[in-house]
């Protein structure tokens, strides 16, 4: 019966006189609560930060390894707006005014430290909201060898098929993205075609019932490859390819290597 007695007591309290003390008490109590809250939040932040950072690192590693099998080590580089390549390590700030802005790429290295390919981040407008993808680029053969949707808000059951549809993803197992003669764009732009009408390796066959989302992905890939791949190819040695890559390709063609 304590609960009931407590409630009755609160109701029977005399009215508070409208003078100064209540203001001081109000400010003090809110300050006290705010201080305690602040301490709790900061404590939790610092306690969970290492775990969260590790989770993010593992998630990124998993998604890169999934489209670039055999990856053991990842080197992060950024293609800046002016075309320069910036190597990203612990010393480069991730956020804030000094953080570099550009396209993130991850070069996957196998256990012998040979580069397997470059994973590029790209994003653009989908049917509902932004679609973010990563794709694996083979600079030697000038092909896209895989694509994964990292985040999308497409319609469940319809547009979100771009995330899991096997046939759609087969488009990106060897998508032709060779550069044109001037090496400043693609020889053939990546375009979406209707389901069943794919004739060339640079076409993306859409998903029936998810035309707009499929077209959006093709558009995102086209925009990204057109602007980023020429920069990558121009400075391919900065990514660890070049002599090593030529040696690897010849090793592969004689049956050795991977």
């Amino acid at each position, binding site marked *: 019966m*304590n609960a009931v007695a407590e409630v009755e007591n609160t109701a029977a309290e005399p009215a508070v006189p409208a003078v100064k003390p209540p203001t001081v008490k109000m400010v003090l109590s809110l300050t006290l609560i705010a201080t305690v*809250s602040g301490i*709790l939040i900061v404590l939790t932040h610092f306690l969970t930060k290492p775990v969260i950072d590790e989770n993010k690192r593992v998630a990124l590693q998993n998604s890169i390894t999934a489209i670039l099998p055999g990856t053991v080590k990842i080197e992060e580089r950024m293609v800046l707006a002016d075309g320069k390549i910036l190597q990203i390590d612990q010393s480069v700030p991730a956020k804030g005014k000094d953080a570099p802005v550009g396209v993130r790429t991850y070069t996957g290295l196998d256990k012998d430290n040979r580069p397997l390919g470059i994973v590029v981040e790209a994003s653009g407008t989908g049917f509902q909201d932004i679609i973010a993808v990563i794709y694996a680029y083979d600079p030697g053969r000038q092909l896209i060898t895989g694509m994964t949707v990292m985040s999308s808000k497409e319609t469940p059951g319809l547009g979100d098929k771009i995330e899991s549809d096997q046939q759609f993803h087969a488009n990106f197992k060897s998508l032709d993205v060779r550069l044109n003669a001037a090496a400043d764009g693609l020889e053939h732009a990546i375009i979406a075609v209707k389901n069943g009408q794919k004739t060339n390796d640079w076409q993306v066959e859409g998903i029936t019932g998810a035309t707009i989302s499929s077209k959006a992905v093709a558009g995102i890939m086209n925009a990204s490859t057109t602007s980023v791949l020429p920069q990558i190819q121009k400075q391919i040695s900065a990514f660890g390819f070049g002599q090593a890559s030529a040696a690897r390709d010849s090793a592969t063609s004689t049956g050795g290597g991977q």
Partner: protein
Amino acid sequence: MAAAKKEVQNFDIFIKSLWKENPVFAQLLGLCPTLAVSNSVSNAIAMGLATSFVVIMSSFLVSSLRKTIPKEVRIAAFILIIATYVTIAEYLIQAVSLEVHKSLGAFIALIVVNCQILGRQEAFASRNPVWPSIVDAAGTGSGFLIAIVSMGVIREVLGAGTFMGVPLFGPNYEPWVIMILPGGGFFVLGFLLLVYVTI
């Protein structure tokens, strides 16, 4: 004798918050997250647990401080406390699973404005001792968990043909897609309300 009576009383408080005053079915509070996050069972469980954590911890702190919070600023104080625990819950969810954090998205932060929690502070925690407040909060949290998970089960099984991501029916099953869209959420909620009122 008094201790046994208190035990029974506390249990009554728990059952009352869980069923008779179920936050979703009886009080019709917190319908936004109930509708939005019940499109799959794992999301529903995560949301229910996160909300339960926030309401229990907030009730504990509010009840402990109930004699020091002046009446005039009580709502501001409650919101401050609730917001703190929601922030903590968000860090904890990220630490446990980034996947779940991504699925719940903005709805974790929206737990702050869930009327169930503020309602509990105002109606119970600010006027009662600590342990009964915790018990009451646990009842509310469990009631919400039961409500949102039952919606999640119906919507995921019918709308996607899976349970916790595991496909239940063969590949020829044509899912009733509207069930995982907002419209389906309303239908299922209405249906469950009908069931609750009839029981």
